[in-house]
């Protein structure tokens, strides 16, 4: 259905319609001719089968009746010779019989117009027949007289019948003549109708063809003008595309160089990160060494604390010894006191002893004082030792803290080292990606250059297309007839056509005024066309109608 519908679309459809109209006209003509021929054939047939047959039958009837009458008369004449008379009688009877048959045939086929006349004739015939048969019977008996009497009746009736038949015959002939005339008329009418139809169909075809060609031309003109407009836009767009792609190309090149710089910077960063990693590894080993040293210091502190404790223990032992000494001194003192008591109780005899006891007591007290001093000193020393032990203890704690801190620092530095390594790996990946990016950018630049060249080619082809459109317009309209403002793009296309086209632009500007779009196009075109103000502004006195070579060719 769709394909069938498509058949009636476009130029092909127009042609199809044209063909259908012509074929239809021809068919109508053929139908009319056929019907006319049919009429003619029918007339001829009627003349042949009806009118002529009737006429012939009537003629035969007339002949047979007259023959019968004649034979009757012959039989009467030959009464003397019964043999001949007999033959005549038989022949006459045969004729009568034949006439009867013909009468029947004619009675069936008689034209209704002559029915009355024919019946009248038949009535005469019946009388004749009857009289003839009676006469013939008399003849057979040999009674010529009676036979003649009967035949007189026949003779009286026969002219009437013959006159009637003649009348019918002349009427039939007239009918045939009339039919022939009618056939002539029909033929001439058909010819007239066909001629008229041929003329009308030709005129209709001419009108349709003109309409069709006008419509086709209008459509094609519209299409070419829109083609021209679109071609101009395509040209403009392709030029913009060319510029944009050139900019893109240069931008790509710039970005490629930036990328190279970035890559080199990344390499520097990578080396720095590697140095960082190395340094952090070194720092980690250093901090491990520091940790070991701190551990060593801690153990030293521990041995110091132990030594301190031993000193304290020794001091306590000394103290105990001192206590013993003190005790001894105390006891000595007591002994001295007891001695003094004894000496005092002894009175005068004990005086010397008392002196000794006093001396002993003094010694004892001095040793006690010394013991006390030593004890104090030892106590002080123990205190100091204790304090030193405490300091050593806190030093140990501090050292342990230092150890743990150093350990933490070491861990952190290790983490920094691993992080630096990861960084380095990441940077190498970035570098790889950058290289790929660089590659891609260079490809982009190449593609952009290709696009630029392609768009230039496109613009050239668009120019070519504009020229083709001009050619097509010339082909369509027979001459270049610009009534639109879009021809300016063609100005760049052909140098030979430029002056004319600029002129036409100028004219169209002077008529319509310069539209903004056109002005933009002009501005973009100006460097190429090198159009000056004189070319843009209409100066009607300058070269009023200079035809262009391109249009002259057509």
């Amino acid at each position, binding site marked *: 259905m769709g394909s069938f519908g498509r058949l009636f679309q476009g130029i092909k459809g127009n042609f199809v319609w044209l063909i259908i109209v012509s074929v239809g006209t021809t068919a109508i003509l053929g139908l009319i001719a056929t019907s006319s021929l049919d009429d003619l054939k029918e007339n001829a047939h009627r003349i042949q089968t009806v009118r002529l047959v009737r006429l012939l039958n009537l003629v035969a009837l007339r002949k047979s009746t007259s023959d019968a009458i004649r034979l009757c008369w012959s039989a009467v004449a030959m009464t003397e010779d019964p043999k001949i008379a007999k033959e005549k009688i038989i022949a006459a009877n045969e004729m009568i019989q034949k006439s009867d048959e013909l009468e029947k045939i004619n009675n069936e086929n008689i034209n209704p117009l002559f029915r009355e006349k024919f019946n009248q004739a038949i009535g005469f015939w019946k009388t004749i027949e009857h009289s003839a048969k009676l006469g013939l019977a008399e003849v057979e008996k040999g009674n010529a007289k009676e036979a003649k009497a009967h035949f007189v009746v026949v003779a009286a009736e026969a002219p009437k019948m013959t006159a009637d038949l003649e009348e019918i015959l002349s009427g039939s002939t007239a009918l045939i003549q009339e039919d022939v005339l009618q056939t002539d008329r029909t033929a001439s009418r058909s010819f007239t109708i066909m001629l008229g139809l041929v003329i009308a169909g030709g005129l209709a075809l001419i009108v349709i063809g003109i309409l069709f060609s006008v419509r086709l031309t209008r459509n094609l003109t519209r299409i070419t003008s829109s083609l021209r407009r679109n071609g101009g836009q395509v040209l403009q767009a392709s030029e913009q595309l060319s510029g944009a792609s050139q900019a893109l190309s240069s931008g790509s090149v710039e970005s490629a160089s930036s990328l190279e710089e970035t890559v080199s910077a990344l390499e520097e960063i990578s080396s720095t990160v590697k140095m960082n990693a190395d340094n952090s590894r070194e720092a980690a080993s250093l901090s491990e060494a520091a940790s070991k040293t701190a551990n060593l210091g801690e153990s030293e502190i521990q041995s110091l604390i132990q030594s301190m404790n031993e000193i304290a223990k020794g001091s306590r032992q000394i103290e105990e010894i001192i206590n013993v000494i*003190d*005790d001894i001194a*105390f*006891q000595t003192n*007591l002994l001295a*006191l*007891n001695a*003094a*008591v004894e000496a*005092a*109780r002894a009175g005068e005899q004990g005086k010397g002893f*008392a002196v000794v006891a006093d001396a002993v*007591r003094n010694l004892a007290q001095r040793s006690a004082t010394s013991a006390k001093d030593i004890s104090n000193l030892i106590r002080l020393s123990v205190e100091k030792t204790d304090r030193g032990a405490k300091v050593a203890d806190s030093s140990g704690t501090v050292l342990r803290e230092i150890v743990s801190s150093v350990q933490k620092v070491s861990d952190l530095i290790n983490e920094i080292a691993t992080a630096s390594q990861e960084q380095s790996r990441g940077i190498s990946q970035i570098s790889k990606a950058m290289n790929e990016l660089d590659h891609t950018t260079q490809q982009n630049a190449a593609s952009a250059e290709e696009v630029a060249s392609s768009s230039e080619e496109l613009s050239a082809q668009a120019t070519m297309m504009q020229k083709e459109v001009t050619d097509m317009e010339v082909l369509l309209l027979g001459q270049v007839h610009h009534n639109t403002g879009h021809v300016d793009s063609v100005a760049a296309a052909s140098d030979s056509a430029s002056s004319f086209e600029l002129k036409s632009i100028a004219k169209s500007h002077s008529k319509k005024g310069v539209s903004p779009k056109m002005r933009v196009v002009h501005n973009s075109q100006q460097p190429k066309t090198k159009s000056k103000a004189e070319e843009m502004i209409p100066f009607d006195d300058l070269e009023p109608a200079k035809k262009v070579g391109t249009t002259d060719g057509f």
Partner: protein
Amino acid sequence: MSLNQQYLTFELNGQQYGAPIMLVREINRITETTPIPRTPVYVEGVMNLRGKVIPVINLRLKLGMSKGETNQHTCIIVVETPNGLVGAIVDKVFSVVEFRPEQLEAPPNVGSKEHLHLLGMGKLDERVVILLDLLKLFETDGVIDASALTSQAA
């Protein structure tokens, strides 16, 4: 009772006291004492002095002072009484001091029965030494019957 010129000085509750040297048999370190039931508070108990059991009196408690702490200076002065030897616990023993007559003074007149415990005051380097009459101190109390104690012990 005449004043003997030689005295054994000792300390009670930070104050120097003196006792006539002739009453003192000996001075001993503090030793363990065996408490005796149903005796006054100031009687610490009895001690074994070289095979001889003697009563021991805490002089601080006897003189109405608080019970002091026992330390390495605490001594027991063995006093000869007519009833026998009696131990007296003192804080500290200083020395045998010989007072000149000008250094001695009669006991102050405070008007109390207990003055009988005092022999007088000895002046020593701006300090005052209270000279106790130990015999009287132990007699007037009437508590101590050393012989009875000893006989009981025997």
